[in-house]
């Protein structure tokens, strides 16, 4: 059996808003204040093979960032387990946990907020590898220059502060910081969403070069389907905390299985499409505080049946390598 780079097994994450003192007191007096629970990620499982780029797509509030943060070890799952190279990283501590954390690095959306404005670039990039003993402190300068050159930054600039760089360059600093600890797996959370189109292309190309040079595996989180189509081998689509469809990229853009994916693909603006007659999907994204029963998508779905309102569709294999969570799959 080949070991996957990453296996996610039934992970869930709930955020609970606990009752404050006033709410508890008024409850004693007969009020009915309840704890609010958001099921940000609900029973999600998938695997990523070594060297694969998986795109994770969904709209705001679908839980894609929460999932990415759990994979990167920033959040702990409420339930389920995450295996990196076959090793469970959710229940480890000490040296093993540190090793696991180093293997998975994250690149954030906002290149302005994710860099410490009071640190010089050489410290931003060089601090972690020294702390973790990847390089001796004496070699820090040389190592930082090497990493900076790799991401296309002029090593001359290593004494500068983040504010002296443009958005695209800052994003490169963020990438260099992640690469400095020699990870094998990168989680990119909307890493190019804040950049201008021409700069976006530069960073996408950089990601692809790094993948070839360093044999990296990516979880590429984005709301932008055209970027995901460009960069990923496989696409995972989420809606309100659940996976609705998993498919190899080529096949997904040829034929969709889940009505939500169909709607999403139709809405993607493309240069080739002119003078469109927009036929929008109706309705709003429901609040994750109070998700619809059964299939979360049923209030907006054009094919909704009675069954969809009550019964939760499970993710099932539709054809080789393709999964969808929709009752329509049983009808066929």
């Amino acid at each position: 059996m080949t070991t996957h780079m990453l296996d996610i097994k039934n992970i869930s994450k709930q955020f609970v808003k606990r009752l404050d003192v006033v709410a508890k007191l008024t409850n004693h007096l007969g009020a009915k204040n309840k704890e609010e629970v958001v099921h940000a990620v609900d029973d999600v499982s998938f695997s990523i093979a070594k060297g694969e780029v998986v795109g994770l797509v969904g709209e705001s509030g679908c839980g894609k960032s929460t999932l990415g943060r759990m994979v990167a070890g920033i959040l702990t799952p409420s339930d389920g387990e995450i295996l990196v190279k076959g090793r469970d990283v959710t229940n480890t501590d000490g040296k093993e946990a540190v090793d696991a954390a180093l293997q998975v690095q994250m690149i954030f959306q906002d290149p302005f907020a994710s860099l410490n404005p009071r640190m010089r670039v050489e410290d931003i990039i060089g601090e972690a590898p020294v702390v973790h003993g990847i390089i001796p402190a004496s070699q820090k300068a040389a190592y930082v220059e090497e990493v900076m050159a790799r991401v296309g930054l002029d090593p001359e600039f290593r004494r500068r502060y983040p504010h002296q760089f443009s958005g695209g360059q800052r994003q490169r600093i963020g990438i260099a910081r992640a690469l400095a600890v020699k990870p094998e797996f990168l989680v990119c959370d909307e890493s190019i969403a804040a950049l201008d189109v021409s700069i976006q292309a530069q960073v996408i190309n950089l990601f692809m070069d790094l993948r070839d040079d360093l044999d990296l595996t990516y979880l590429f989180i984005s709301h932008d389907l055209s970027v995901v189509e460009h960069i990923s081998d496989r696409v995972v689509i989420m809606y309100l905390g659940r996976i609705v469809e998993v498919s190899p990229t080529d096949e997904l853009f040829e034929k969709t299985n889940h009505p939500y994916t169909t709607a999403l693909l139709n809405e993607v603006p493309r240069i080739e499409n002119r003078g469109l007659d927009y036929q929008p999907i109706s309705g709003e994204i429901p609040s994750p505080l109070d998700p619809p029963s059964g299939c979360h998508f049923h209030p907006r779905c054009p094919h909704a049946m009675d069954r969809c309102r009550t019964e939760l569709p499970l993710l099932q294999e539709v054809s080789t390598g393709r999964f969808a969570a929709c009752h329509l799959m049983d009808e066929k």
Partner: protein
Amino acid sequence: MTEKPILEVENLETHFFTKAGPAKAIDNVSFTVGKGEIMGLVGESGSGKSVTGFSILGLVDAPGEVVGGKVLFKGENLIEASDKRLQELRGNKISMIFQDPMMTLNPVLRVDTQMIETIRAHEKVDKETARQRSRDALAQVGIPAAEERMRAYPHQFSGGMRQRVAIAIALLNKPDLIIADEPTTALDVTIQGQILYEAQKLCRETGTALIWITHDLAVVAGLADKISVMYAGRIVEQGDIDDVLDHPVHPYTIGLLGSVPGHNTRGTRLHQIPGMTPSLFNLPKGCAFQTRCPFADTTCTEDQAITRPIPGRAIRCCHPQREAAQ
């Protein structure tokens, strides 16, 4: 088109007089928008696309100043118009929709209060008629249960709904021109689709002219009739949407189109424009794009004249890439 265009912008120049020296945020920009026409104004951050919108409405604040050119709205020059006249026009005959609806709606007033106020500021109508019209406008932009929803406060709406309210307010006085500044950038894809649908329907049904300011070429491709591409304060290429996108001539437009990922680009390297947008304080002499342009030579350091190879098409480049485009 024989009809006179709604808006004619001629050689508009807006400069910002800062401590570091004057920045030419808009440099000799001209375009026209006709009745029911949608023009996409595309550019990257700092290209001057939003300032163009503000200049038309007379909303440029110090240290910025419109220093030259004309903005003819149905023949009337808005640059010379008094503040009072501009107030009459803004929100009435010309409306603007901004990127972030949470910033444009007053959070402490109910939606109906804000809408009725907008109508009554420009017209003598009683409250009940104004309310009626507000409700119709909300229904028009696809807000279900408009009667109840208009009694809500802005924070009770979702992002997409809030943007619809902002659009409904822009529509209230049946404007002849709407300037929309990145109105869907903060929204999700499916919600963006809904807003684009409403915008398109509106222009077709009411003949409102629309300027859609965005950085997203793909959105403009589906929506607009014509397009103007801005770079460092200047329009570098403009023309009919199909014409420009299928046969781009300016190296910047070509580069921009090449850097958009799409069908059939998977696994390939995207075309990238080297370098980054120059600072407005430090523009090279002549063509602003020359430092990033693969075709640049010594002629590019001279001032670039606007050429019109075919009717309706304008380019500011001395090395138009016609061969490459065809």
